[in-house]
């Protein structure tokens, strides 16, 4: 076993331990759902605090294990993707806005940061807030145009926006400025933007120490992004979205304005998505239209789906799992996309609530009883098969007609 495999294994084990600890705390209650809904907010808050602390402590000392440059690079990438996916999950899983255009928001952050560095000559540290601000404006505009649509409409329209953006960037061929005899297109065109400098870690920490600077910058990004997501989840906004998710009609009749709160979350998620874009652009020292490609979209989407949509730590687990899977699949380079899409399909078919849902299901497993027939998801055939006598009782009868797809 090589060193990098060992450290990946350690990471995986650490994450697994954290997951087990997570559900250990909640498994004592008979019913997970009722526990979440009851007034146990403080317990959950402390649980998330301890998980976060363990993970952060582990991440802080991770470079001391002597991991090589390649592994640290992979972990940095993991931090950035996890930060993006945490924000995407906030919008997609938690607020219920089924956007597939999150990479467009990310790209705006990266591109504006890079352009500010390149055309205005600013340091990238100064360009980061500019990029984040521009992203917030963009995500507000994007949200304002799409949020009033219905769920599946949003998915298609946001995907179309991302594709249109990629097309505009790729087809950009006019020279915007000429520097050192190199013609720069405004958006960099198909070859992307480069030559806008970096965060200056090489000058501060030397050639060898540079990677550690990058590591802790990306870690800081992920920590802030996760803190922000947890803040939203535990704030009144979080309760609002839980009420919308549990019963939208009931919530709206209590005066909850879905569009308003969804727009707020969509806009706010732009802050850290934009920052992640800027950090990505700075660390990669180049940014191109390939971040809007279908395969990257699929990669990040599968992180959310595999981890578990709408859960606090699902995106992080999903990102870790997918980065591991990607390292394995990299050797099969032509079949990499096929492997990713198979993962998504299998998870959609067998684990619709992701890994977190699976673990929660194991801890909260109960033998099936007749009560489960009133869950509303069962079709008439199953009702008929399981207990024939109850079919014509009023409750079941209405249920089987009432649940329209």
């Amino acid at each position, binding site marked *: 076993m090589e060193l990098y495999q060992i450290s990946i294994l350690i990471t995986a084990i650490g994450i697994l331990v954290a997951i087990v600890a997570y559900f250990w705390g909640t498994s004592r209650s008979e019913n997970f759902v009722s526990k979440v809904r009851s007034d146990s907010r403080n317990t959950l808050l402390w649980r998330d605090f301890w998980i976060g602390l363990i993970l952060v402590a582990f991440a802080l000392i991770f470079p001391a294990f002597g991991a090589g440059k390649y592994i640290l690079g992979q972990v940095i990438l993991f931090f950035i993707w996890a930060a993006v996916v945490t924000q995407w999950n906030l919008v997609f899983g938690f607020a219920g806005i089924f956007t597939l255009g999150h990479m467009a928001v990310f790209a705006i952050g990266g591109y504006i940061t890079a352009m500010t560095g390149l055309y205005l000559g600013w340091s990238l540290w100064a360009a980061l807030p500019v990029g984040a601000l521009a992203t917030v404006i963009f995500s507000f505009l994007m949200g304002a145009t799409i949020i009033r649509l219905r769920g599946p409409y949003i*998915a298609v329209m946001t995907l179309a926006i991302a594709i249109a953006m990629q097309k505009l960037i790729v087809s950009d061929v006019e020279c915007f400025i000429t520097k050192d005899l190199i013609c720069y297109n405004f958006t960099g065109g198909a070859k992307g933007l480069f030559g806008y400098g970096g965060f200056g870690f090489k000058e501060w920490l030397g050639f060898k120490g540079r990677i550690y600077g990058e590591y802790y910058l990306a870690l800081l990004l992920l920590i802030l992004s996760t803190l922000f997501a947890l803040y939203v989840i535990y704030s009144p906004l979080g309760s609002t979205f839980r009420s919308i998710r549990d019963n939208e009609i009931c919530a709206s009749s209590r005066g909850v304005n879905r569009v308003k709160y969804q727009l707020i979350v969509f806009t706010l998620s732009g802050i850290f998505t934009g920052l992640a874009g800027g950090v990505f652009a700075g660390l990669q020292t180049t940014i191109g239209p390939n971040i809007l490609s279908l395969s990257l979209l*699929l990669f990040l989407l599968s992180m959310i789906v595999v981890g578990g949509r709408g859960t606090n730590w699902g995106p992080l687990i999903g990102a870790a799992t997918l980065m591991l899977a990607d390292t394995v699949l990299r050797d099969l380079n032509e079949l990499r996309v096929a492997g990713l899409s198979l993962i998504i399909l299998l998870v959609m078919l067998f684990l619709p609530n992701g890994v977190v849902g699976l673990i929660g299901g194991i801890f909260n497993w109960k033998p099936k009883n007749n009560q489960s027939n009133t869950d509303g998801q069962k079709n008439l055939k199953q009702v008929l098969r399981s207990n024939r006598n109850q079919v014509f009782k009023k409750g079941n009868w209405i249920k089987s007609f009432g649940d329209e797809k």
Partner: protein
Amino acid sequence: MDIFLQIVFSGLAVGSMYAVGAIALSLLWGTMGMLNIAHTAFIALGGYISYWTMTVMGANWIFVLPMAFLAGIVMGYIYYHLIIRHIYSKENFSVNIIIASVALAALGENAYLNLAGGEALRQPFRFNGGLEMIGVVLTFQTIFTVFVAVLLMVILSLIMSKTKLGQVIRAVSQQPTASKLMGINVQKSFATALMLYGSIAAISGVLVTGTSQVFPSVGYDSTVKALVILIVAGLGNLRAGIFMAFALGFLEMGVNYVLGARYGFPSMLAFVIIVLLFKPNGFFGKEQITRV
């Protein structure tokens, strides 16, 4: 004048392609309420079947459309029984199927890439030449595509309104449980709808690739455009979808000629977004009221 005519002709060509895609996709929306991004794999299937039949096997062009028809039926059947059926039985179908179909689109693209290679192939099923009017050519390919689009629409409307199959599909889409109680095999009728969809989509793939070339991601553009068109027209309204396909085709081609080709799709999208801002259910769509 001839620029105007040129825009009209190319708008007709593009619009008819969008229309064929919109017909197939709106059948799926009407039946199961799914938006199928994996349509791109079906389009590429039509293109590769045509290439395989004529160039590799050396068969006559007459066999192309029947072969695409058969392949589409088989793929639709597999698609339903391997994937859709299982996702349909769980909650949140309409969103989950979009995620799954994005994955399937990528899987299809990767499969074509590995089986046939990434290079663009010339699709042999096409009509050369055309009618010349005031120096502008209306190609036979365009005429043929428009003809097939209209034909498919008529056939589909007839099937849905006149035949027993259409009745079954409509009944199942309105009340799955009630139609099951009336003795309809819901699984079978959904599978039939998917087979019908697959055949139309594969035939549209033959037509779409006729004006360009065949490569793994060939259907991606027209799929997204057809979905956007369906949404702006108001889902479930077939005639409005066809009308919008042509209207947006003309708009896109007009912008292409006036501002340059790179602004065609973005301006079309901007138009759609503006429409949806004022009418979130589409231009011809009605607000849907769900009873609880």
